């Protein structure tokens, strides 16, 4: 193990996969000049010994995604980066009609093995066009997979799996993750897509989270522990497919559930979790599920208003207190 930032860990994942498989290439706007929106591709072309495999794209999001679909159908494994998740709506046809459906509607004649990396979430005063968490949109589309890592080690293992995987993967990476440090194994590893992990064992309440919310939930759990509450934290890792079995096992154990995300609460992925828990583990519930997320507004720039849209450890703690009462 060694301590690495998320940026370093995922850079290594890119490098390793590009060296392992010549069909993997990276493409994004500003991928050379700035090394990507978070500088997470700096030096990648030189590191893999082929600068032609890191492509600086024109500002053409629809062509970036569509070309990745076409290249994948012709046998390549593109990793494209949208710079910010808010660029995704620019190319919704390419993602939801072309990437998601080409394999199915052509009867399996081609596969769309591509990864769409999307830095997302509230960082600091970036305003409504640079902050959305859109995972629920894409979890609603058959044919796509949605992966949301929570730490440097998780990011590396999940990105490697996403690249090797034969499905189109939307890979949401909270912008605050890129500077996060954590232990990353030295040896080769991957993390399977569709398998949640119990990030913290507990018996009184299940906190179901993914992405950046995992560290916030763990922080909340520490505080709760001091108050005598044993909180279990489930890191979903992927929201499509999502690991129902692990979630339901936790719910059956604790009987109390908090679902939390940074995306707006209305029609967020928490709604799917909450509904499924209600349908399949109702008898185990001691109190109704509480789900928390951002209020139903575009994220405002002004700092105090922006703060009202974050889902923080204190919000998780108060949600846990609600399910315990």
């Amino acid at each position, binding site marked *: 193990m060694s301590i690495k930032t998320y940026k370093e860990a995922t850079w290594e994942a890119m490098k390793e996969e590009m060296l392992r498989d010549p069909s993997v290439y990276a493409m994004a706007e500003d991928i050379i000049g700035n090394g990507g929106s978070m500088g997470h591709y700096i030096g990648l072309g030189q590191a893999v010994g082929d600068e032609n495999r890191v492509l600086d794209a024109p500002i053409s999001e629809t062509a970036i995604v569509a070309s990745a679909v076409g290249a994948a159908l012709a046998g*390549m494994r593109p990793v494209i980066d949208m710079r910010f998740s808010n660029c995704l709506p620019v190319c919704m046809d390419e993602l939801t009609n072309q990437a998601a459906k080409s394999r199915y509607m*052509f009867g399996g004649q081609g596969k769309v093995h591509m990864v769409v990396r999307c830095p997302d979430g509230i960082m600091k005063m970036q305003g409504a066009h640079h902050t959305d968490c859109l995972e629920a949109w894409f979890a609603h589309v058959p044919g796509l997979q949605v992966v949301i890592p929570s730490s440097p080690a998780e990011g590396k293992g999940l990105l490697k799996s996403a690249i090797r995987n034969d499905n189109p993967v939307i890979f949401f990476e909270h912008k605050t993750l890129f500077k996060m440090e954590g232990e990353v194994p030295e040896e080769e590893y991957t993390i399977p897509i569709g398998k949640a992990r119990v990030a913290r064992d507990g018996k009184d309440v299940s906190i179901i989270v993914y992405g950046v919310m995992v560290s916030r939930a763990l922080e909340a759990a520490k505080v709760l522990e001091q108050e005598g509450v044993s909180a279990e934290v489930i890191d979903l890792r992927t929201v499509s497919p999502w690991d129902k079995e692990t979630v339901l096992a936790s719910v059956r154990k604790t009987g109390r559930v908090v679902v939390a995300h940074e995306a707006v609460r209305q029609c967020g992925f928490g709604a799917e979790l909450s509904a499924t828990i209600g349908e399949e583990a109702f008898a185990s519930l001691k109190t109704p599920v509480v789900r928390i997320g951002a209020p139903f507004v575009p994220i405002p720039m002004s700092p105090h208003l922006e703060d009202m849209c974050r889902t923080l450890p204190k919000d998780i703690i108060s949600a846990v207190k609600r399910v315990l009462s």
Partner: protein
Amino acid sequence: MFTKEELLSYYTTMVQIRQFDLEAKRAREAGEILGNVHVYVGEEAIATGVCACLNTTDYIESTHRGHGHTIAKGAQLKPMMAELYGKATGSCHGKGGSQHIADFKVGMLGANGIVGGGFGLAVGAALAARYQKTGAISVVFFGDGASNRGTFHEAANMAAAWRLPVIFVCENNGIACSTPHSTGGQQAVVDLSKRALGYGMESYVVDGNDFFSVYGAMKRLVKRARGGEGNCCGFLECQTHRPFGHIVGDVQRYRDPTQAKAQWEADDCIKNFERRCITAGWLEPQDFEAVQRAVSETIEQARQFAIDSPYPDKSQLFTDLYD
């Protein structure tokens, strides 16, 4: 100069497309097949002339009106017809249908239900070919209406900027779904190939009802694309007719259907081909008759194959979605 075999092969392809789509139209009108069916009748010389310049390993991206492109690229008619019927033996195992037909074996990467959906995919296929060093080139067919989409402009710019071998083939039939260009509300330029100038591409405007014009211009563009020197993209505008409605069942209240059909009949690409070959002394009328008869039999066999084939088993609902 063409050999007799080549001429007969081009003629056969055009007649296959014509008869396949007239049969598809009949079956759709009779309610034997349902769903959206866009027939390529009247535009056969374009797909045939373009694909005659391509190899099996080259890629094409198609439109809603994709049967002609698929046939011209070399697909088999039986699985194509079965696909229209939604049968398990169809090219896409019945999951795509007419509007989403594809045959990857011959480099046909798919019809597309989204107007202008194929541009970027064609760029990607050309990029893949460059990485894989296969020497394949990529062709995207699209209509005059689709040239107004931003996807065209993004893909054209990217292909040209990256020196990728992509040829943009515009089938300009003068009408976007139900809106003729004459309404003036579709685009400011009449000559759509002028758009290629903005991307530094070589471009040609040809009579899309004349196989030999399409073939000749395409041959030049393909040679340039394969050469791979500089901006090797191309743009081919083929001016043509759409004798029927946008879709089978369209009553065409936006124009006089009789007049549209009559204009096409006076300029039918298959008759034009026959006239040219006879005038030049390349082929005899009986050559055409023999092809017509043989193709009729093939189409009947394809129809029978489609009817006799089973529907996909219910167990197929979730196959080919994820690994």
